[in-house]
């Protein structure tokens, strides 16, 4: 079984800040930021994924975007950091169901089966860079730049058909 779907829009930010200041940033965002690269924190509709030593990706409800940006500007103004709105840069794709892992692995040289639930990373599917979040055993969320999404989505569809045909 495979479910493939474009996800509803949400607010997305790239947060760059020295690890020493991450606690303060977590307070502003309302969610303690994860410490290890690849780790995800998630609560109350907010999500934070650590992608690099000083890089976090933040997700929130679309309607909360403006308020989050304003709070960072107001409350973290004196702490060096960079918060950039990338809500429209990307599109979320849900890949879930018992065939999800097979379908994703077909296009990705990273061993996704070995990555734990509740983790995420940037990697490459076919030729497309994407952030992949493993949200449950058989539930993944891809985040892809808009203009690359149709290409990747149609590849996922093709592979999905093959996997579902028993290949």
């Amino acid at each position, binding site marked *: 079984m495979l479910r493939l779907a474009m996800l509803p829009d949400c607010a997305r930010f790239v947060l760059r800040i020295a690890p020493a200041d991450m606690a303060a940033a977590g307070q502003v965002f309302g969610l303690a930021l994860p410490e290890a690269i690849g780790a995800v924190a998630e609560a109350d509709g907010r999500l934070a994924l650590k992608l690099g030593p000083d890089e976090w990706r933040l997700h929130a409800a679309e309607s909360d975007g403006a308020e989050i940006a304003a709070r960072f500007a107001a409350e973290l103004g004196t702490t060096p950091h960079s918060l*950039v*709105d*990338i809500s429209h*840069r990307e599109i979320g794709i849900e890949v879930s169901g018992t065939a999800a892992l097979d379908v994703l692995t*077909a296009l990705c*040289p990273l*061993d996704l089966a070995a990555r734990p639930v509740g983790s995420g990373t940037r990697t490459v599917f076919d030729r497309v860079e994407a952030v992949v979040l493993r949200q449950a055993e058989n539930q993944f969320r891809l985040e892809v730049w*808009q203009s690359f999404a*149709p*290409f990747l989505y149609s590849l996922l569809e093709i592979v999905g058909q093959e996997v579902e045909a028993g290949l």
Partner: protein
Amino acid sequence: MTGYRVAGRGRVDPDARLRFIFDGRSYEGLHGDTLASALLANGVHFVGRSFKYHRPRGIMSAGVEEANALVGVDRGRGRYTPNTRATVLELYDGLTAESQNYWPSLRYDIGAVNDIAAPLIPAGFYYKTFKWPASFWNKVYEPVIRRSAGLGRAPTAPDADRYASRFAHCDVLIVGAGPAGLAAALTASESGARVILADENPEIGGSLLSDPAVQIDGKDAWNWLEEARATLAGRANVTLLTRTTAIGYYHQNFLGLVQRLTDHLPAAASSLPRERMWKVRAAQVVLAQGAIERPLVFDGNDRPGVMLAGAGRSFLNRYGVKVGNRVAVVTVHDSAYLAAFDLARAGAGVATIVDLRRNPRAALLAEARSLGIEVLSGWTVTATKGRARIAEIRVNPVDQNGKVGAARMIGCDALLMSGGWTPSVHLFSHSKGALDWREDLQAFVPGAPNEAVRCAGAGNGTFGLAAALAEGAAAGAATAGSAGTPTVFSVDGEAPFSGVYFRELPTDRDPTRAKAFIDFQNDVTAKDIRLAVREGFRSIEHVKRYTTNGMATDQGKTSNINGLMIAADAVGKPAPEVGLTTFRPPYTPTTFGAFVGYSRDAHFEVERKTSIDSWAEANGAVFEPVSLWRRAWYFPRSGESMHEAVARECRATRRSLGIFDASTLGKIEVVGPDAAEFMNRMYTNAWTKLAPGRCRYGLLLGEDGFIRDDGVIGRLSDERFHVTTTTGGAARVLATMEDYLQTEWPDLKVWLTSTSEQWAVIALNGPNARKVLEPLVQGIDLNGEAFPHMAVREGKICGVPTRLFRVSFTGELGFEVNVPARFGLSVWKALIEQGRPYDITPYGTETMHALRAEKGFIIVGQDTDGTVTPHDAGMSWAIGKTKPDFVGKRSLARPDMQDPKRKQLVGLLTEKPETVLEEGAQIVDGPYAAVPMPMIGHVTSSYHSETLGRSIALALIQGGHGRKGETVYVPMPGAMHKATITDTVFVDKEGAKLNV
């Protein structure tokens, strides 16, 4: 049943009859046959002609090593495959195949004259002949050679099939599902490790498929095999891949496997992908590739009906086909006796076994006697006879001193030969494992590995079923570390297995007249190898290339070792000192489709589209590719040519209002307390004093001082810059910036984020641009004084957030409306509506290019080519003179960078206003200079300027800045055009149109 089918034998299904067509004739075969076994069942041995001499050839093997029986398979339009080995081509109902390398027919081939002319075309003949007269090469020799050369017929229609690919990860990958591979898989998978077992055959079993009489654990081989299959299939941690060839073994246990999915099915049966490439990363690899039998080297060893002894056994036991009714055998190895015995028991008359060895094993002799087979030990084969199929062999005794006695003729309709066995070390060699020479086997076997790999069975030089099973089990257990316990197998009924090695078989005839083939596919004979050595080639790699031995599509599976042994003998060195040629992927011929996978048609390349693209498409845009993007090139109205459309778009923009989708521009947000300092160090320009709300044109150099990129950069606040880059340079510029930031200036507190796709960008240009914006924009005073040229403001447009830039790439009053990408289309449509009173005109990249050229604005990568400095481009004004340093500054001080003779960017006006120069055309000083004329520059941009009603061009010309007003010449096909060097700005030189 045909005359050669043996009832009750083989794994074919006697009730599943299939029709197939070979060379236009219809035959019957059985499900489970290959084309080769089905043809042999019909008594057909002569199936093709050889590559060089066009000699009749038959089927020499029963597997992937086949060098002779190559056929073209026709599955309909776009599905023709040449050079398919009949021995691995699974039969299906309606299969249509044809033989190759003949004209006009297989039986009467004109090219066969090459065989008679063979003394004239020895090894390397094409290096030696056809040299004179020189003019004959192009006109006569090459066309003739090209027509007669080549293997098979290349398909011309696009491949109608589709192909799949996938990555996979496992703990243990086992290549080869013969006894050793199965033992490894059964053991390795016991622990729950992820195991992939791949085998190129349609079913697992390997040599067991040809050896049903042997017993494992008290069961008949095939029963044991079925149980093993069921056990593996029942384990969730095992992936069993049949029809899957491991084609290459790369670094860190990364292997390519090609799985054939539909070629065995009737042609029209499937919409599935034809093949799938598996790209497997394995923690451990077990190679159990088996061994390939060696042909013997004697005159006429290529005649149809001569085949490897093991193949004769496989055709009988696996396919239920006897290869002849009067079979002769010539061997240096025990294994050939097994074929003879099985055939004799199946009722094929076995005439004679010729054994080069003087003292074959007594048990073999006894069994031969009991079956009524004559054994000539210490004899040799010196010739064969027969046209389309072997009819006689010439045999001679060889005495203890090697003297060859009087000949005797023996009639036969098939000759089985065995020169012993060569372990298949191909994949092990791909992985850069060392090979060791085994004197007892006269063969190379895997030595010290270079990867986490173990070899088992015949491929490791471990012959014999019991030994192979034990070694496979041990390898499988070892992959599980100390936890693994090898499964123990007991074997009954196994025959002994040993032999010796012979180069060319002894003969009483002139060996230089013998056609004793080594490489059957490339028609290389033993004397070709010796000739190469006589001519001075010593390295086996050189001998290989000179003779082409082992260079055919079979890559020398049956010929490399014989070639090496004969070359070593000719050189006078032991074989291991001469060494083996390099094994290279792929292991067997692989379709291009398998490599291409999904990357064709719509998935050949990513095609990026902006959020406004759908509007452009609906409104008739013609598109052009710009890096990965497709961009609207121009918007023709019905009946308009490109020239007319661009002229209209240019006019409209200069006179009233044009609208342009600039979303593809690269964008980088530079944020942090050190943002201005970072910008100072990266770009040539000075940024410290740029006030928030203002923009500046930025020029980015490489450290070598040459222009790399440019773009308008807005300062949104003290600590935040909105940088734009060229469309094609976006990723490169960000990577360059990250490089400097992370590795040279890690102390700077500034961060970079790509926002290229966050923002849709709509450029409005023309005298009426402001009028259209005014009613739609909130929170920004658009008045010319409040919002001057080169300023940026944040506010709203149509109710959504915008970063509004007042910039111009056309020389007209211009704005660039940035809105979050998903709002791009609706804002675009609102602007189109609002612009109707002003005849708002969408324009594409061609108009953008023409309008900017009229203003002398450069396009990086068109007017620059990686050797142009800011000064060359006439942009010294963009350099912050007081800055101590920026990327590329030091290079600008090098003496050659200040040479007044450097190529510099200038304008060109042709003498005839209607002449539009070719971009890239060379420029010379005068029309009468001596040839070759010194080339002083080239045209970089050239357009018809609608504004001026004439052509304009930009060019890089040596010392051009100092040559304004001078005349140069531009040679183009058919004419030498005269042009005057000018300033680069053609329209509105003082920029009055911007200040409104």
